[in-house]
């Protein structure tokens, strides 16, 4: 390992802005995208569940 201290690691030999800017952008987008994809899936699932409950309710009212 070439780092003598945590400070040296974060300084990245003077390239901190460029290195952390690159890895940071990747981390940010690659956390945001799965979050959005999962939210989209759960939204459509929720609306389908609501739709089914509404259908069942309607059916109950008709039969009673």
């Amino acid at each position, binding site marked *: 390992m*070439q780092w003598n201290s945590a400070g040296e690691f974060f300084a990245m030999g*003077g390239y901190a802005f460029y290195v952390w800017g*690159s*890895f940071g952008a*990747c981390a940010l987008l690659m956390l945001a*995208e799965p979050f959005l*994809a999962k939210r989209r*899936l759960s939204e459509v*699932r929720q609306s*389908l569940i609501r739709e089914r409950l509404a259908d069942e309710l309607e059916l109950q009212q008709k039969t009673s």
Partner: protein
Amino acid sequence: MNQSIIQWFKFGSPQAFYPLAGRMIPWFWAAAAAFGIAGLWISFFVAPTDAQQGEGYRIIFVHVPASWMSMFIYLVMAFWAGLGLALNTRLSGMMAQSLAPTGALMAALSLWTGALWGKPMWGAWWVWDARLTSELILFFLYLGFMALQAAIDDPRRADKAGAILALVGVVNIPIIYFSVKWWNTLHQGSTINLTKAPSMAHTMLWGMLLMALCFWMYSIAVALTRVRAIILERERHTDWVKHAVE
């Protein structure tokens, strides 16, 4: 027909693919995490300082995987789009639609990390060089594909229009790949190719490959998650969907 071929066709239906994708997703996340941890460890703690670029070269560990994936995802997207156009299968168009945002994200990361690498090494965030320009065109192809599909209400017609765009755009992929050979560019040549031994330290190569595998597994996991949402959205009026969500 051969039994095993029929098995594969079975999973071509959204109804069969929806639960299968759900079972596969956690495995791809696990693989992405494992490759990512190993890749990051090598990127920061094992790979040596570069003789010319100091620590700044470490951007390679995200720049190259993002660039590879941006090109590879486009090919896969165009393959599914083309298959949908030829065979009129429902799932193909959904797969293509699901891959586009992830491809666009990879192209954006490739351009972003490239700019952050170019500034300290070349002295410029951006140059209108063949490699950079063709990658920018790839990013716009993804955006164009998504915008075109979003603009057409009927999903099957949107698939067809998108497929034509995706297939025409495939011509850009070899242009990106060979741009560093065909033109004199500021961008360096490929670090890895099939005919020569890699021109870099082995630990650097391993770090790059592990990060590429991480990005690959990530892309599959997120595209499968999105395709599940698209399946439910598009098939919401069918009977099976009504029973698929509990």
